[in-house]
């Protein structure tokens, strides 16, 4: 023994480091721990393997090996139909053996863009989608190259997207309301920007301007007299495009995945801040504010989304004066945002309640104002706690967008449904729905993974 003693052994300590037992590391260790850690777990593993072995070959055969991917223009008249997928079976009949993905191939444009292509060019939504990815990247990840520039782009993106997708020429008042919003928000976002003082004036005037236009609209419908129109004369009805003019594509033509993403994104981007404000309002010490928020949240939560959509599409026009028609898509957006904001408010409220009283007191004792303490202390912690709930709401919202089908907007599912009812594609419901399912899954699963990643990233505070 003594001849194996090294100097550090004699000092007490310094036991040599040994490799862990082979059964705890590597593939063997992983399997032991995850697949065969006990009798129940082992049975579960074997049953699961059995089910996979039983089902997988059939699925693969249908989806890939027996499937038809590209159609041939057999008749020479430019039409490709389900006939291209038919195979002669043993009895000599023509049947469908595997999946007929030709449907997706032929209907691709409608599934993705709806009828957009009939009025405009589909390069516009395509560019808008690329822009969306560029705008989201700096918001989701903080280590993106050119992040600062991309953040500016993200701020401008909603306005670019409306111009790209909608196009057309607008009246002066619409231009002022829409683009004025950028100028009004800018100085609130950036503390140190050139000309901030001047822009702050716009910020102050903007709400007054909106109120004036609303008042003017009411005046117009009741008395047939508009201050705005009288003052500006021909200028009030003059239509123009502040950005390079693009052909107008009515929202009736929007559809497919594009519509799903538009509704989903607008819902996600707006429902969180509105939900936060509602949650804070519900906890407010001011009774009127609290009551308003409670009524809104409870009313919206107590009614199914479908009902709200119906009300928006059928009842709302009754309240509007004749001649004024709010775009169908805008109505759907308002409903979806309101609906998810009400749910979001309750999720956020859960987070607010989880913050210890001491945090509020420490913020108060520092003379932070209410909004500063919310923004700096309470909300960062509360929102972090409820990330799973928030993303859960987002995923639910994204899938619920498909209900706009009821009011005659055709999202990707609506388009798929329309495709399979066509005589050319009878009997191909499986293919259509599997495709739509896969698309939804890609989006929802990405959101889920992102939320897990974000939770881990923000978890620095409590772990060593």
């Amino acid at each position, binding site marked *: 023994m003594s001849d194996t003693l090294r100097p550090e052994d004699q000092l007490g300590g310094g036991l040599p480091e040994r490799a862990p037992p082979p059964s705890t590391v590597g593939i063997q260790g992983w399997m032991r721990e995850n697949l065969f850690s006990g009798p129940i777990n082992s049975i579960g593993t074997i049953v699961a393997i059995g089910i996979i072995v039983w089902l997988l070959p059939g699925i693969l055969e249908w989806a890939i090996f027996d499937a038809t991917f590209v159609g041939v223009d057999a008749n020479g008249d430019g039409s490709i139909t389900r006939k291209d997928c038919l195979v002669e079976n043993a009895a000599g009949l023509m049947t469908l053996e595997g999946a007929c993905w030709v449907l997706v191939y032929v209907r691709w444009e409608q599934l993705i863009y709806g009828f957009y292509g009939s009025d405009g060019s589909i390069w516009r939504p395509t560019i808008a989608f690329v822009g969306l990815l560029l705008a989201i990247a700096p918001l989701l990840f903080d280590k993106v190259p050119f992040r600062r520039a991309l953040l500016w782009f993200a701020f401008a993106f909603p306005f670019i997207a409306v111009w790209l997708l909608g196009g057309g020429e607008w009246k002066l008042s619409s231009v002022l309301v829409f683009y004025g919003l950028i100028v009004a928000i800018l100085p609130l976002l950036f503390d140190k920007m050139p000309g901030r003082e001047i822009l702050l004036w716009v910020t102050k005037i903007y709400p007054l301007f909106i109120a004036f236009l609303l008042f003017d609209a009411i005046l117009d419908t009741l008395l047939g007299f508009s201050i705005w129109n009288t003052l500006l004369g021909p200028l009030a009805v003059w239509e123009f495009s502040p950005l390079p003019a693009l052909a107008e594509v009515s929202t009736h033509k929007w559809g497919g995945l594009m519509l799903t993403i538009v509704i989903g994104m607008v819902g996600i981007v707006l429902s969180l801040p509105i939900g936060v404000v509602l949650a804070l309002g519900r906890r407010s010490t001011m009774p009127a504010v609290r009551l308003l928020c409670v009524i809104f949240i409870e009313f919206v939560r107590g009614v199914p989304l479908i009902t709200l959509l119906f009300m928006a599409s059928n009842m709302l026009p009754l309240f509007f004066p004749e001649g004024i028609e709010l775009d169908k898509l805008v109505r759907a957006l308002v409903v979806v945002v309101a609906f998810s904001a009400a749910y979001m408010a309750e999720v956020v409220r859960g987070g607010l309640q989880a913050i210890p009283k001491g945090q509020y007191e420490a913020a108060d*004792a520092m003379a932070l104002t209410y909004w500063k303490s919310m923004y700096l202390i309470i909300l960062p912690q509360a929102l972090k706690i409820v990330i799973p709930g928030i993303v859960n709401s987002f995923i639910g919202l994204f899938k619920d967008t498909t209900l706009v089908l009821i009011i005659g907007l055709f999202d990707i599912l609506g388009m798929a449904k329309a495709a399979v009812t066509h005589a050319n594609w009878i009997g191909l419901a499986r293919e259509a729905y599997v495709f739509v399912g896969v698309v939804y899954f890609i989006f929802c699963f990405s959101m889920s993974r992102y939320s897990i990643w974000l939770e881990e990233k923000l978890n620095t*505070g409590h772990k060593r």
Partner: protein
Amino acid sequence: MAKSTRKTTTSRSSATTRSQAAAKKAAPKAKASNGGSAATVPAAGMAVTDEVAIQVSSMNKWYGDFHVLRDINLTVNRGERIVVCGPSGSGKSTLIRCMNRLEEHQEGQIIVDGIELTNDLKKIDEVRREVGMVFQHFNLFPHLTILENCTLAPIWVRKMPKREAEEVAMEFLTKVKIPEQAGKFPGQLSGGQQQRVAIARSLCMNPRIMLFDEPTSALDPEMIKEVLDVMVDLAESGMTMICVTHEMGFARKVANRVIFMDEGQIIEQNEPGEFFDNPRSDRTKLFLSQILH
């Protein structure tokens, strides 16, 4: 202990204070244990002025039907260090939480730094800017680093430039002897370290008055000393302090006045020597006999 004594010795010039400091040095366990025997001399050189810092007059407070604070009258002069003690539920925490309006009082007057505390939010914030508070459970912001915890209020309330705020914060973190932790998160620090950060955080606002709400009650015994040392240093710098604490050794060492509260009333107040050695009311005697043994 050793450190603060050394500081005292070097910073004094008069012969008498020097001998006092020497006397303190001679009693080695003066502050090591709670309510230890020695040092009845409050740390010298901390001038109490005639200027009034906090004036509480005929103040009453209720929680629903429960009368928590009953006819409180208290004047704190600038530079004064007051220790408030009493059994739990006696209203001592509530009292100092009224002084920066974390709690609202229903009757009477509280004037802090010449500003009366009313429902006027601007006045309340004015007071809170000048009054620092240290809590029993530290209440650091767990999502921010130590440095960010310290710079938050100077940047957002005092509108100090970020770099300057960071310099000030590092200065105070050095004073509480944990500058090396600046980049960590509160969850990574021990209780004693967290409480020292909390003190530094308050000091970064350059307050004129500091309130301590049982700052050592949530700490492990071996961490109490490091926090008390920081508080003693602070007292020696002349800060106006009101401490709710049961650390009687600390009270003897730095307090000008000890206040004893029970059932929402101030039962007795006196300078620490008299208070501990010669308590007047029976209730005080009972309390002292319970905590000093």
